[in-house]
């Protein structure tokens, strides 16, 4: 008998057996269905026919092929992969929240409306701004909402402004959002230290500029120290200052963005506020803004009225809806739990420990993997393979794959685009010193391997379910479905 382990990489449809069933719907009202034959589908959908156990085993097996925050250190820069507390999941699943229909009468939704109202108040205070919408489904969706606000704001003033300024270190979503909204993107080269060049900004900003979109700290993990000069240049030109809040974990509780002249900013609940990423979503976003932009926020908002709460559909100046219904409320329940679990002081401790962790990793690795910046970093650092590794033909991709073989998820790689062979490491505050020490040891070990036997590192990973995958074939001959 052959007892060799069988590697099961079949698709669910390949396990299908005609006539097998998982679940039934036996509601006797089925007999009342009277759909005319001409409106019925001709061929049944080609879906797998499996038992419940088949399905559970199939997806349980798949789950075990993944790295995740719970199973592996996951220092993905700009993604803030911190621990997601368990009780948030229980809270979001509470029947009262989970079963509430989005068109429920306000009288039936008082608990959720109160939650949204209280969360809104806490977040506006945290950011030092005046108003907020929680409707966007993600960070990029928030940027879209923010630029719509800008558009409405200038239209209301009778001004036509066609340009958005982004530094070249910006997340790809910034220019993509700008062009989706019909704006032209003006790219500004960063200074050698990674900061926005204020003199360059002054050259490009003017009556055509609608918004400066700036990530803070920027994607190099550096704070824009000349923030006051930047804000002044933006406001002198009559433009708006948008802060991409993807990296807010570095600042939470430690500074209020409103204090340095930000007109609006977005939040990513699936980053800073610890709601789980789910393999790419769901997220949730928010736009927090000053009073001057508040009349244009999407509707509905939640307002206190007497002893209760009501959905408020604003006035005619609102930009309308960016999404059906209210927003990703299930994610907001988790974000609210996060706010409840942190006092003012503890919020500041998040930023402080995120910054200590990033600098700790940076300081222990910078001799082997030069740091792009010579300064201390904020919540993340950008390193690169040194000349010694480069001389051996080792690329950032090889270092990333070497980490997978050592049980660590790779950092964000090849971003920001302005750094050649970037390795962007964001440890987050929830990782302990011991974990960081293990990570540093793994990075040193990879360096040693790359120097001694570079080809073996170029073959990594060798411990994963698959080796390096042929991405060229995937794109040339797309196989996107069974």
């Amino acid at each position, binding site marked *: 008998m052959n007892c060799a382990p069988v590697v099961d990489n079949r698709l669910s449809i390949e396990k299908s057996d005609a006539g097998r069933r*998982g679940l039934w719907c*036996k*509601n006797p*009202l089925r007999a009342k269905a*009277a*759909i005319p034959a001409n409106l*019925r*589908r*001709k*061929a049944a*959908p*080609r*879906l797998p026919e499996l038992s419940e156990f088949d399905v559970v085993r199939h997806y349980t097996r798949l789950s075990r092929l*993944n*790295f*995740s*925050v*719970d199973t592996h250190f996951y220092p993905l820069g700009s993604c803030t*992969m911190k621990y997601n507390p368990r009780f948030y999941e229980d809270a979001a699943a*509470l*029947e009262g929240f*989970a079963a509430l*229909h*989005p068109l*429920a009468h306000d009288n*039936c*939704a008082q608990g959720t409306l*109160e939650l949204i109202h209280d969360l809104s108040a806490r977040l506006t*205070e945290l950011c030092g701004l005046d108003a907020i919408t929680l409707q966007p*489904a*993600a960070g*990029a969706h928030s940027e879209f909402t923010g630029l*719509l606000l800008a558009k409405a704001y200038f239209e209301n003033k009778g001004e036509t402004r066609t340009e958005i300024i982004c530094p070249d270190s910006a997340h*790809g979503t910034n220019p993509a959002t700008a062009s989706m909204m019909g704006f032209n993107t003006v790219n500004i080269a960063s200074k050698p230290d990674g900061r926005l060049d204020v003199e360059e900004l002054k050259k490009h900003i003017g009556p055509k500029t609608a918004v400066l979109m700036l990530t803070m700290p920027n994607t190099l993990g550096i*704070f824009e120290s000349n923030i006051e000069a930047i804000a002044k240049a933006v406001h002198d030109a009559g433009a708006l200052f948008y802060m991409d809040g993807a990296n807010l974990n570095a600042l939470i509780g*430690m500074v*209020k963005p409103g204090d*340095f002249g930000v007109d609006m900013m977005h939040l990513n609940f699936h980053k800073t506020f610890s709601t789980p990423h*789910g*393999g*790419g979503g769901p997220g949730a976003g928010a736009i927090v803004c000053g009073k001057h932009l508040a009349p244009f926020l999407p509707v509905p908002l939640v307002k206190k009225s007497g002893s209760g709460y009501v959905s408020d559909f604003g006035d005619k100046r609102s930009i309308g*809806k*960016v999404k*059906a219904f209210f927003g990703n409320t299930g994610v907001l329940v988790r974000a609210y739990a996060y706010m*409840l*679990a942190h*006092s*003012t002081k503890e919020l500041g401790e*998040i930023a*402080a420990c995120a*910054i200590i962790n990033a600098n*700790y990793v940076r300081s222990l690795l910078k001799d082997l993997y030069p740091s792009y910046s010579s300064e201390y970093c904020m919540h993340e650092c950008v390193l690169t393979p040194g000349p010694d590794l480069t001389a051996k033909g080792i690329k950032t991709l090889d270092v990333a794959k070497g980490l*997978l073989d050592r049980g660590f998820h790779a950092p964000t790689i090849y971003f920001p685009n302005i750094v050649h062979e970037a390795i962007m490491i964001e440890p987050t*505050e929830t*990782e302990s010193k011991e974990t960081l020490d293990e990570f540093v040891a793994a990075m040193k070990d990879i360096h040693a391997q790359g120097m001694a036997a570079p080809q073996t590192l170029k073959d990594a990973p060798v411990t*994963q*379910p*698959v*080796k390096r*995958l042929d991405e060229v074939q995937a794109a040339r001959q797309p196989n996107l479905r069974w």
Partner: protein
Amino acid sequence: MYIPHTKKDKEEMLKAIGASSFEDLVKQVPGKFLWPKLDLPAESLDEAQAAARLAGLAARNCRPLNFLGAGAYERYTPAAVKAITSRTEFLTAYTPYQPEASQGTLQAIYEFQSTVCALYGMDYANASMYDGASSFAEAVRAAVRVTGKKKIAYAAGVNPQYMDTLKTYFAHSPEYTYVKVPTKDGVMDRTALPGLLEGAACLAVQTPNFLGLIEDMDGVAEIAKKAGALLVAAADPVSLGILSAPGEYGADFAVGEGQSLGLPLAYGGPYLGLFSCKKEHVRQMPGRICGLTKDKDGKRGFVLTLQAREQHIRRDKAASNICSNEALCALSATVYSSLYGPEGLKELAEANAGAAAYAAERLSAIPGCSLKFKGPFFNEFGLSVPGSAAALREKALGRGVDIGLPLAPLYPELGETLLVCATETKTEADILKLETTIKGAI
């Protein structure tokens, strides 16, 4: 707080960094901005206190017997779906940027794409969008890119929230125009199509439409094609267990609200945008796409592919700005569809149609009430009621039943009409209670 650092840890780490204090690390931040006063609670809640606070809020939402639909549908979520989606290897992973360490998520996305293609009868699907409304808007944007035309024709029966979202997506360009195809007895007036579609990028239709009625799509794609317009179809995925698939009637893009596949109502999200298209439009699809390929040893594996459409590569030339999507909801819908399979989905669709048919039969017999439209419907229908529909709903809510959505604010021309929905979660007894409640409240 979820920070492991002890005081000693922090001291050791600062020493290793070579900083004399934490303040050294943040010298790049102008000092006057550091540590502002925050008007937030000085004390945090412990887990038990926070859980109690949340449970208290959840309990303040009431739980009427629910007959609301209108784009979000009450479903039973099978235990096996919850068991899989709560596996933290799925829950706490990120977008699969390192494919070798993300084969579970990637294969699940591939199976999700395949499930959407199978349900909608389409060639390709993406890895998900935010919700049905944003999928709809992105499909119309794609049709505009393909055709280069700026006139958008849409059936009056498209969910008004989808249209609001679409108009927001195009708010920047006043050159886009909208043409509404009127309804006749609640469904699209097909005789109006040829004239209205002249010069249009697409015809956007929803079936079952917002009023619950099933559009007869036979021949519509041909009419659109003749006018040089693409067909964008929105359809509820559970209805496709029994109703014609968009691929069968020639849709170019087909979208839907995936919440219907067993996701909780959750006051509007997280939901799941389903997005699919014909083969020739694949490079106009927004968002992430997973493809099957081989590894160095020739073994099957999965990667994110066709990324040249996406924001992190193309920046201002990208097809869309979408980055995070609804991956976990996509997994949930995939597991749900696999558990029910083709037969089970047909049963679910029949149970929806049957429950709604029974409700319509009972309610239309109430004196003063009648069905607003004659045509076949899926799981919801318009009911004319005597007096104010909104007042009737409030009265019924007091008796523990949400009898449906008053349509007058959205469609004033329909008068005092309720949109009543019954899904497979409703029993004969539930529907009799609905009947008694309405009778009592009139």
